[in-house]
């Protein structure tokens, strides 16, 4: 996939990018604020890289799980995305007519208040396609990563 995503504009601490799928993507400031770390997971990668993880979740085939959002995991889950070692990322996709831009955040092991976990069907598809090995798939399903 050719990488075309790029920075477009800022609004205070929020930075907007044009993603590879030509949708606007918001690097939400709450996920880059240590003061919010107790309730919001924090990205450990740069904003351009954050946007491109969304692009990879969206293209060539959206890696959704029927919940309305998209999921990203790097090949082999090698890449650590969040400041607490998170290797998954979830991107909220607005519904039709909603004016909220796409944005996402790292997702870690199960804990109280975790809003999302990848659907087992999606995890199986990652394993079948060879994106992740069996041990990674099992750890995701057990909520360990």
């Amino acid at each position, binding site marked *: 996939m050719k990488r075309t995503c790029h920075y477009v504009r800022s609004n205070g601490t929020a930075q907007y990018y044009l993603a590879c799928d030509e949708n606007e993507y918001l690097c939400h400031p709450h996920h880059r604020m240590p003061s919010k770390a107790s309730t919001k997971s924090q990205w450990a990668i740069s904003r351009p890289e954050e946007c491109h993880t969304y692009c990879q979740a969206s293209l060539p085939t959206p890696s959704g799980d029927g919940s309305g959002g998209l999921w990203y995991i790097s090949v082999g889950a090698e890449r650590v995305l969040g400041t607490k070692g998170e290797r998954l990322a979830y991107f909220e996709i607005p519904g039709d007519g909603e004016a909220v831009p796409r944005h996402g955040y790292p997702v870690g*092991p199960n804990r109280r208040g975790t809003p999302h976990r990848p659907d087992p069907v999606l995890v199986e598809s990652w394993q079948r396609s060879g994106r992740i090995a*069996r041990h990674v798939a099992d750890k995701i399903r*057990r909520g360990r990563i």
Partner: protein
Amino acid sequence: MNSILKSIRIRLPGEWVDAWLYKETAVFWSPDGFLYYLPLREIRAAIERIAGRHVAVVADYLVFRNDWKQSKQFSDLLTFVPNLRDSLLSVFEGDSLTIEVEGVDQRLSRSAPHVGYILDTAVYGNRVYSAGESGLFETEFNPQFPESENPTIEVVDNEVLAVIANGGRAAFSCGEAGLRTRSIEFGFGKVWWDNLAKVGTVDDYSIDTSFSTLDLLNYTGDAAPHFLRARTRWEDPSGSAQYRQRIVVDYDQPLEMIGAIRKALNSNHRIAMSGEVVTDSLETGLKVIGNSNYHLLVSDNGRHSVINISALSDSKPARLYRNRGFREEKMGSGLVSNAISTQTVTSGFLLEGFDSTGLITERGTYVVIDEPRVRLRAFPRSRRHHDCFVAIGDNFVELVGYIEV
């Protein structure tokens, strides 16, 4: 002088999702939920055939008979007769010995299969629990009568992330549905699945649970688990049980531990667990990584310690105190900080990492397996296998034993 860990891996082929060592039998779950079994004596005979009697004897102490390994007699032999120790361990060319076992076939049991993906299992009192995305299931498997036909009964139909069993009770983590328990109906002389006990909820959220002797530690993803003290009574032997045993009757209300943990880290005294609530503990960098029975492995801004739970007397509150046996300088920081789960082994803590398996003892921290494994399983309440573990690989299962020298 630094210790070295020698490990033996007995590798059996096959794609499995979980395995237990139970009453001289290895029990396996296939990906489609069926229960298989293999007498350990057959594995031991295969080792002797393939690798010789010397290796089989080493496997006895490290895997099949940890009660021998833990004995003072064995410890004295290794300590005071170094020639014998060196000769015994001469089978290890490096620090690890792998034996590829062939010519043994796991047998299919006649228990009905688990439905759906298995996330965890427990075996206790000839009861087999399998937990997964479709619920918690219970069946019976008696290694003395492995050909018996048994139904698999659904306990709950919500997702169950973890299950443990001891003290006549099963406890299982159901996420938003809480930590739930049920007493086990052994059904001696009766059909055991008739008149099953009701399921009760003892905490309102749970992603994992573990025993601290018979008390429960309930993990929620917060900085520290909740502590649930067990109320018990003694029960006389019946059925296959040979000894009087303590049975859990119920659990007290969950107690917060983090306040007492913080005090215990900085004290030489025993700190009573008062249930003090401390907010934002995760943001102070204090976290319980896991436990090994009543030992808590604690990380405090990258510094690691072990805190003991003492809850022996029913008349006194449970207390926490610093364990001086596990020294911070002996706990390798990377392995501990990156652990995604822990299990109980007699020597210390078994650590599951993203792509490795580690062991913390009072003498050091070791990488036992430097490759990823699908799952690990330890057997802390086993008389013979309390200091070894099973590791599930992509297309094999390993029985792993070790010894520090």
